[in-house]
């Protein structure tokens, strides 16, 4: 089953289903929903096949589609699965059917617009993660915004207009510089190889001057940190997460925010290794501020949805921290955290939506859920535990690896006389785990336990909802208990990335004794 057609089908299937939706019967029928679900499950089946068959050393040609799009400019429609995007492919294709199953009975799911938007979003997200051409990546990176914008606008809460506008305009700011950087890289390729080219494989081998690297790095990091988001670029987050419909919030937090982390891994570090190494401490600092700031804000929230929104800010901080520690273990941790947080946060938002579907706005005053609906309560608790990073859940594996790699990196820098900053940052990041346990368990106590003050006729999870959450919980448990088989799939990609960064460090270590490099200023002596 591992062949280019599978990869193409992965991308085309949701798009094709989105295009046949409009010709189907009008509202009131379940047919559009069923067709959409079939499409999403088809994508899931394909991506599970690829995921299982991929062993980390599979020939990249086997899983790549490469068709010229603007041939004269080297812009190709080039999709391919590699160690870096295989988790994200699985995460994306898994979240969509789960989201649809959880919102199956809502009024939204009755509208073909809703279903169509979900399918188009799935296509463009998969396109972003799978693209092996920088221009194609940029195209999908932006294209994701349109369905999400319309989804928030049409199905969002009271403040939807403001939320949709803030979301779109804020996340687009990053794209201004990003597009300039993309074109600049194409120009560099024109000067160095004699022809326009946007293939990642070509761009990775260009020799970029420090100025160009600097420009590209700033552009990419700005765009990615806004998307994640990471402090201080997070101000769109509370409004957008709060006002979006449940499906939108789950997908934004679960899959779209991962685009930012993916961009850092795919663009920032491989394209500008020297500048990345030099600026890593600064980004680590931002990530740790983000971890602590998100956790403190989450502690103060009374509203569950906002609490999870801020906890997401905190957890995204771990991902960025792991990436910029540039150690194999920490990057593995970040990749796991991408998967783990994607699953857990989407699960949490969807659970809240299940409660809201049952109780309306009064779910905010809910307590003693474990008495009314034990299955719901257990599932919710499992997601909470994954977020808290309890051992044997995926959260623990990933945060442990990130912090382990962080300490390695921090000690390494300290021992070579490069200052204490990173070490201090990593120690502070550990306290984020404690704070995380604080707010999540407070949330659990408030909603799950306590005295049942009045009888609210509330149904427990039905079969459809239970089935929907099983794969999410399976991922939480598998990564928590036996991560190795999953980890080896990304091993090669991670090795290459860290080798690149390590090579840079060695090259820079030599002249450091004689000349002052920008590194010195960046990591704060």
């Amino acid at each position, binding site marked *: 089953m591992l062949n280019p057609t599978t990869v193409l089908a992965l991308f085309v299937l949701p798009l094709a289903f989105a295009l046949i939706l*409009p010709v189907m019967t009008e509202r009131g029928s379940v047919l559009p929903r069923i067709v959409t679900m079939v499409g999403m499950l088809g994508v899931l089946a394909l991506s599970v096949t690829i995921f299982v068959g991929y062993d980390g050393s599979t020939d990249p040609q086997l899983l790549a589609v490469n068709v010229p*799009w*603007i*041939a*004269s*400019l080297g*812009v190709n429609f080039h999709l391919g699965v590699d160690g870096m995007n295989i988790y994200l492919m699985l995460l994306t294709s898994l979240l969509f059917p789960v989201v649809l199953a959880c919102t199956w009975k809502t009024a939204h799911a009755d509208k073909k*617009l809703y279903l169509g938007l979900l399918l188009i979003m799935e296509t463009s997200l998969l396109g972003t993660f799978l693209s092996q051409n920088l*221009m194609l990546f*940029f*195209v*999908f990176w*932006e*294209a994701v*915004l*349109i369905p999400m*914008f*319309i989804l928030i*606008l*049409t199905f969002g809460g009271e403040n939807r*207009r403001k939320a*949709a*506008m803030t979301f*779109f*305009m804020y996340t*687009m*700011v990053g794209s*201004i*510089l990003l*597009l*300039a950087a993309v*074109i*600049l890289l*194409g*120009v560099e390729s*024109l000067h160095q190889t004699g022809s*326009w080219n946007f293939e990642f494989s070509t761009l990775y081998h260009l020799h970029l001057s420090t100025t160009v690297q600097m420009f590209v790095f700033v552009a990419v990091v700005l765009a990615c940190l806004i998307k994640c988001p990471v402090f201080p670029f997070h101000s769109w987050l509370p409004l957008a997460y709060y006002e979006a419909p449940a499906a939108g919030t789950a997908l934004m937090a679960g899959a779209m925010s991962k685009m930012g982390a993916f961009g850092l891994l795919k663009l920032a570090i491989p394209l500008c290794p020297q500048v990345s190494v030099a600026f890593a401490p600064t980004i680590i600092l931002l990530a740790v501020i983000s971890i602590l700031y998100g956790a403190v804000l989450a502690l103060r929230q009374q509203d569950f949805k906002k609490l999870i929104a801020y906890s997401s800010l905190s957890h995204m901080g771990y991902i960025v921290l792991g990436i910029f520690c540039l150690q194999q273990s920490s990057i593995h941790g970040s990749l796991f955290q991408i998967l783990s947080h994607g699953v857990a946060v989407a699960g949490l938002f969807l659970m809240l939506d299940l409660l809201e579907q049952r109780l309306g706005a009064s779910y905010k005053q809910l307590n003693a859920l474990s008495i009314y609906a034990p299955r719901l309560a257990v599932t919710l608790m499992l997601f909470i535990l994954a977020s808290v990073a309890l051992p044997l859940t995926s959260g623990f594996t990933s945060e442990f690896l990130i912090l382990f790699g962080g300490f390695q990196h921090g000690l390494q820098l300290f021992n070579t006389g490069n200052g204490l900053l990173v070490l201090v940052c990593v120690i502070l990041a550990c306290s984020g785990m404690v704070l995380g346990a604080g707010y999540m368990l407070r949330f659990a106590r408030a909603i799950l336990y306590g005295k049942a003050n009045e009888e609210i006729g509330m149904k427990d999870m039905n079969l459809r909802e239970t089935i929907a959450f099983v794969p999410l919980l399976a991922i939480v448990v598998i990564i928590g208990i036996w991560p190795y088989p999953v980890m080896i799939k990304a091993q090669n990609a991670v090795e290459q990335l860290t080798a690149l960064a390590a090579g840079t460090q060695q090259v820079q270590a030599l002249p450091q004794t004689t000349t002052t490099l920008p590194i010195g200023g960046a990591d704060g002596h």
Partner: protein
Amino acid sequence: MATDLIYGLLPEHLLLALILVLMLVEIFHGDRKLGGVLFTLAAAAGCAVLAVQLSNGYTVNLVPTEITIDRFALIARLVILGCGLILGICSLATSSSCKFWMLLASSLLGALTIMDSAGFISLFIGIEMLSLPAFAMMVSGDGTSSASEGAFKYLVLSSVATALILFGLSLVYGVTGSLSISVFMATVNAGGAQSIAATVIILSGFFLKAAVFPFHAWAPDAYSSVRIHITAFLASVIKAAVVLALVRIFSTIALSAEVVSVIIVLSVASIFYGNTTAIKQGAFKKLLAYSSIAHAGYMMFALIDSTGGRTEALLYYASVYALTTIIACACFSLIVPGDRDDLGQLDGAFATHPVASVLLALCVLSMAGIPPLPGFLAKFLIFKSVIASGHITPAVIAFVGSYIGVIFYLGIVYRLFSTASVPAEAGEAAGSGLVWSGVFLGSVVFILFMLVPGVFHSLLLTV
């Protein structure tokens, strides 16, 4: 030679014959619907002829130093005539008088003449033939004083532009003693104060015609005072013809540093002015007018290119912009029947007109430059040549300008998809089937542009 005179200029001859036939029909009070049908047939035949000539690699130097049929002339005429055809099909239902079709045909004839001129005389005649029928179209069949006001402003400022172009041409003649475009190019390449002055003056004339800031004052009034299919005509065919005329003159040569800096300032100012002013507009045609000022800015940006990508980028940009404008106007007229053009009419339109709303949303998002729509690819083609020519700072500033533009385009999308309850319109406007066929044809071309963005590159190369 004689066959070349007939075959090479066949699209022009077809339009000329059409004008004569329409005159006769008008005199003998023939069937009023006949005009539109004849126009559609003639334009489609012209497009077909051009397509055949393109695929055969037909080129001929028809009248030395005056008329030449090269690859660019064939492609540009196909673009103009194709836009005219789609616009014509969209206006079949609304325009029943033969006068409209006659004027449309003469304006298109002017545009085609520009595209195959190799000397300034035919170029100048083409420009005048392009604009003069447009004034008449704006007022014909529309007795409102605002339409006359808009047309009059356009007429006066357009005459100023004509005078500027003439003045520039006389300077060229003074320097070179020739009115051939290629000779003029050689002097521009050689530099010198007089040729820079000539370039700047000619450019100012074209900036006026294309409504680039600060020469834009006529555009908002002219665009908003006429009926919507004429707005579409002004913003699409006329603008595309003016821009492509600049490509005809300057083809791919690099302009001097002084001229480049003037163009950068004016383009950036145009982008910012158009986009910020458009945010405040409450009427669709006004919004279109200000957005067209911004788009003129993007197109002029391509003139600072020195890598030879200008022709391709401007052909793609002009045709995509013209096409999206035509489709957007047609969809707007489908959603909002009659002469109202208040943006409030679009509220909740998705519920009542889903297909037209989605198309209109796609068109405005394309104009805003959101990938993967053709509008983005067009901007990409322009900016990649700008950045490759070493102007990265102006490019980033222009990106910021286009970012501001996204605000008002999103405002339209917001209105279309907002859930405000609107009274269901009683049925579709009469003749909407014809508009739909035009919109359908346009959408097919729109999708093709998205799938094959390199079309003009390969067309220009093939011999």
